[in-house]
């Protein structure tokens, strides 16, 4: 360790890996993975989300899973939750849709309204 800068750089890198264990105010993406969701391709959606986040280095976005919310005909479902706001639920998500959701909603804060299934709320 030759300098403080070197330590800071090391921290910045390491911090990203640990962000998963910290409470962040950043959005949480929940993939609904009941049997129905998985049958409809929720796993490929999940993998697409992960690789998109990785490409964009968005380490402070948490990805979790949950069960079936009962809207099986809309599967695969993905919910984006930001603290203090109502959740946005996307239906019939495909791996191809993922990119747009991440860029438009997660990065720019504009939900992709045409794909939402809970707009009435």
């Amino acid at each position, binding site marked *: *360790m*030759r*300098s*403080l800068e070197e*330590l800071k750089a*090391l*921290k910045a*890198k*390491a*911090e*990203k*890996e*640990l962000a*998963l*264990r910290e409470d962040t105010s950043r959005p*949480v993406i*929940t*993939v*609904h*993975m*009941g*049997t129905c969701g*998985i049958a409809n391709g929720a796993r490929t959606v*999940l*993998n697409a989300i*992960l*690789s998109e*986040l*990785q490409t964009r280095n968005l*380490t402070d976005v*948490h*990805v*979790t*899973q*949950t*069960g079936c919310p009962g809207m099986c005909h809309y599967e695969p479902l993905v919910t984006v939750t930001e603290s203090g706001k109502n959740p946005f639920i996307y239906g019939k998500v495909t791996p191809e849709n993922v990119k747009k959701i991440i860029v438009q909603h997660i990065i720019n804060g504009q939900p992709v309204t045409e794909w939402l299934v809970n707009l009435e709320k």
Partner: protein
Amino acid sequence: MEFYRSHVLVCTGTGCTSSDSRLLLSELTKELKANGLEKEIQVIETGCFGFCNLGPIMVVYPEGVFYCRVNQEDIKEVVQEHFIKGRPVERLLYREPGAEVHTQEFDDIEFFKHQKRVALANCGLINPEKIEEYIARDGYFALAKVLHEMTPQEVIDEIKNSGLRGRGGGGFPTGLKWQFAANAKGDQKYVVCNADEGDPGAFMDRSILEGDPHAVLEAMAIAGYAIGANQGFIYVRAEYPIAVERLQLAIEQARNLGLLGKDIFGMGFDFDVEIRLGAGAFVCGEETALLTSVEGKRGEPRPRPPFPANSGLWEKPTIVNNVETFANVTRIIRYGADWFASMGTEKSKGTKVFALAGKIENTGLIEVPMGTTLRTIIYDIGGGILNGKKFKAAQTGGPSGGCIPAELIDTPIDYDNLTAVGAMMGSGGLIVMDEDTCMVDIARFFLEFTQDESCGKCPPCRIGTKRMLEILTKITDGKGTPEDLENLETLAKTIKSASLCALGQTAPNPVLSTLKFFRKEYEAHIFDKKCPAGVCNALLSYKIVPDKCRGCSLCARNCPVNAISGKVKEPYVIDAEKCIKCGACMDKCKFGAILKG
């Protein structure tokens, strides 16, 4: 960098390792791989979470789901349900005693809610075997700060202002100790970390070393800068293999990154640390004995003064500090003396880690602000006394400490309050006792320990503790005589004032403190030949209550010495002469007809 969506933290501290967390770990790794999840879900080994009686413990992030008592056989279900379908496995979640529903998240659990984690801040949260995780949580920034922004005197002043006192037992102000060593003349000085942790049942220091070893290394380097030392030694007991291994690894990683070694941060400061293994004698935790042992000689104490700050290791100025003391130092430098001093009581600042043990629901490791009452610790954090029994007393300070009786349960716990009631902070052992505990027997237990551990160098301790133990044994054997109490008190005074080191000086404490609060129990043993708690075998007798006995003969058939006789369908009787008081009859009786007293 790999991108994982989930981190699974598995405790591999000593507690969980002994409940087979390693088996679970390998099963988990295998199962994740089998399901193609090994690139999505990262498994991380951590140090102790503190909730040891629930081990093995596993926490899943980002949700923070807290699983306890997880078996190897449970892993398939966790992977299928939680990691594939996202449904936490209900039956493995923690449930508060008496509560209907399971508590899902870590932060909601009562046991953790009342705690304040300073020294244990990283324990259970980071992988102690990866220096990067320590750095991610601001590790080594305190060292960077002192080297870049502070003079050694400013560092000492900061520690003084924080009010930090030694966590190894004595409670001596840490800043002042550093000042003495800084002022001492000498071109070679040393920093020594006392990780001997000899108190029976204590595992605070062990958990810090296993869970956050870098915190101690960083603080030792800070201390080295403050007093002008370039070499540190950690004296750790050889019975702590996981701690030793992780320390060794931590030292190597720090050296590789240049956080130990020459010219740290290019600021011209050199510091390195070596491990010394102790062979487990209690007296080697005493600082002068410890230093003698580090020098390679037999670990025996020597008179002070001279104090180590002036003449310590190889007669050079040396500071000896406890593991937990060092763990606090790093955080004081990082967050400031005022932050630290805002916690605790007037003369005891910050927090204290306790090893909670005995007749209590939640045993484990806890950290609370100084000044927390025993009531909060026992009932809110500890979940109350086992089996709904009555709380009788708590023993603090291990073999050098004393007990706090139930009537003082609202005493705020800090150095001075504990000393005032005749107990002691000690290193942080806290043993909870219920109504079935005999206080004379407890005093005898601790004295047996100190008597055995007395190094024998000075006669007051060597002979005095032996004589005291003889008297206590005599009392618990039902052979006590009226003058015993007086003799115990006289002996205690002499041993306290004439012993060479604090081992002897504090050895009589458990006796004095139980005599102070539970004298009636001693008197019952001596005058009435009774042990009110029903513990001391010699003073017990078993009787059959004729009205309740149905004459089933079960007791007689189970008595190993044929001390019970009678006719079937008539009340049986126990021959007190033959009875060896094993209690087998009482355990077997289905009608509650056998009484002990």
